[in-house]
């Protein structure tokens, strides 16, 4: 079959490149992991309920608790975790650097600040409770544009500059939030906590569905760029020489990711590090091909988030730990570990 001098084709070493069967089997394995995590999330919580009764007796308190509070929360974990991880993967491909993520780049922080400002000013401006998530969404998009603009040097997006700009933005948003916190009354100071700590409580299935819809739409856009994201790893010029419209790819990814992060932040506040831990771990195990990595991050992120939220709900029950704290506790040491690894082998670009 091979036209060259009698050497066998590269062994069917499944790690050498991505085949359809490998993609499906890995995604199936991850889906099973997700189902296990989701089941655990559904089974355990601060309230002891009987699932059997919840399903069989619609009037029982078990039913009310399970379908009214626990299930929406698990669903929210699945949706938000999936979105944050997929966005992390795409952003890392965009900047050719595994240290990029929605929280690190200051996008979540900007969204939170937008929400907080909307909250504080809503008393004067009116607009109702819906205005706050919308402002978070808009602020996240604006943050993305701002970070992007500032990080462009001569039309080139320098990855380390982008990271630096993101870090600075985060510091700035943090300072702004602290400023607001110090001048407003107790009520707003208390409410700000929601945005800073993150929460997966979802009052309605409709809300969850809206976020899921936005997430899926964004993800579909990302998937179509998957091969181009692979090519982008070779450098802007090489990718262009292979037929990629690099500018259009950048813009598309930015719009899709900012919509997804905006939607996530507007309902759940800042939850960092999911987009860092999940893609990096999956990349180490399964390789960097984005046709696999994107859907794998989607599923893996959902599983991770649900597991983290389970810990958040159960560790000091009946009291809760904010889920953002759990992810940050995992994320901090993980980030340091990654820095040390990458430091040893400089990311030559």
């Amino acid at each position: 079959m091979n036209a060259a001098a009698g050497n066998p084709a590269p062994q069917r070493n499944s790690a050498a490149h991505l085949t359809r069967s490998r993609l499906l089997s890995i995604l199936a394995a991850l889906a099973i992991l997700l189902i296990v995590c989701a089941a655990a999330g559904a089974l355990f919580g601060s309230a002891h309920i009987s699932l059997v009764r919840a399903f069989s007796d619609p009037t029982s308190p078990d039913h009310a608790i399970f379908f009214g509070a626990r299930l929406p929360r698990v669903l929210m974990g699945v949706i938000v975790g999936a979105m944050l991880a997929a966005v992390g993967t795409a952003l890392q491909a965009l900047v050719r650097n595994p240290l990029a993520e929605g929280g690190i780049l200051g996008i979540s922080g900007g969204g939170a600040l937008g929400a907080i400002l909307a909250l504080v000013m809503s008393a004067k401006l009116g607009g109702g409770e819906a205005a706050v998530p919308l402002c978070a969404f808009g602020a996240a998009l604006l943050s993305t544009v701002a970070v992007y603009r500032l990080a462009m040097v001569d039309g080139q997006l320098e990855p380390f500059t982008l990271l630096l700009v993101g870090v600075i933005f985060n510091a700035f948003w943090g300072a702004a939030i602290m400023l607001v916190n110090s001048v407003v009354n107790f009520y707003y100071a208390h409410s700000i906590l929601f945005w800073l700590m993150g929460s997966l409580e979802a009052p309605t299935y409709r809300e969850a569905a809206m976020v899921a819809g936005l997430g899926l739409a964004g993800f579909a856009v990302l998937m179509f760029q998957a091969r181009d994201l692979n090519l982008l790893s070779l450098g802007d010029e090489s990718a262009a020489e292979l037929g990629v419209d690099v500018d259009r790819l950048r813009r598309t990814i930015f719009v899709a990711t900012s919509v997804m992060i905006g939607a996530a932040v507007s309902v759940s506040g800042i939850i960092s590090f999911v987009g860092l831990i999940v893609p990096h771990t999956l990349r180490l195990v399964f390789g960097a091909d984005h046709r696999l990595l994107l859907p794998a991050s989607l599923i893996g992120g959902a599983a991770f988030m649900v597991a983290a939220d389970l810990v958040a709900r159960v560790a000091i029950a009946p009291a809760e730990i904010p889920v953002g704290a759990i992810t940050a506790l995992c994320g901090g040491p993980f980030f340091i570990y990654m820095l040390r690894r990458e430091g040893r082998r400089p990311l030559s670009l």
Partner: protein
Amino acid sequence: MLVGHQPMVAVGAGTYLDELMRIARADNIAADAGEQWPHLSMEYIIAMRPQVVLDGSMGTDPSSSSGFWEKYPAIPAVRDHRVFGYAQDPIVHPGPRVGQSLEIIARMIHPEAWQNVSAGAEQ
């Protein structure tokens, strides 16, 4: 009794507000949570079946309505329309107006006991 519903922070045992609640003869469902200001999940609140809910966000934020609670009709307080908002200031802060705070709380928890007593007559 909640400081607010977003985030859902409850009044726990050992706090000044918990003491006010005890004086007003109320069982604080968050008393066993092990912390003074525990974050509670909605499922726990539903499971504890409170008869009255006092929500600080509702009373302080003009745009916050009881719509948040109406999504959970399984809670007895919601079903019986006994979800009340209270103004966080002055109630949350211990100070010379403790007496007024106690009266406000007691009126919300046991309105039937106050039917013949006008405001400000608390000893």
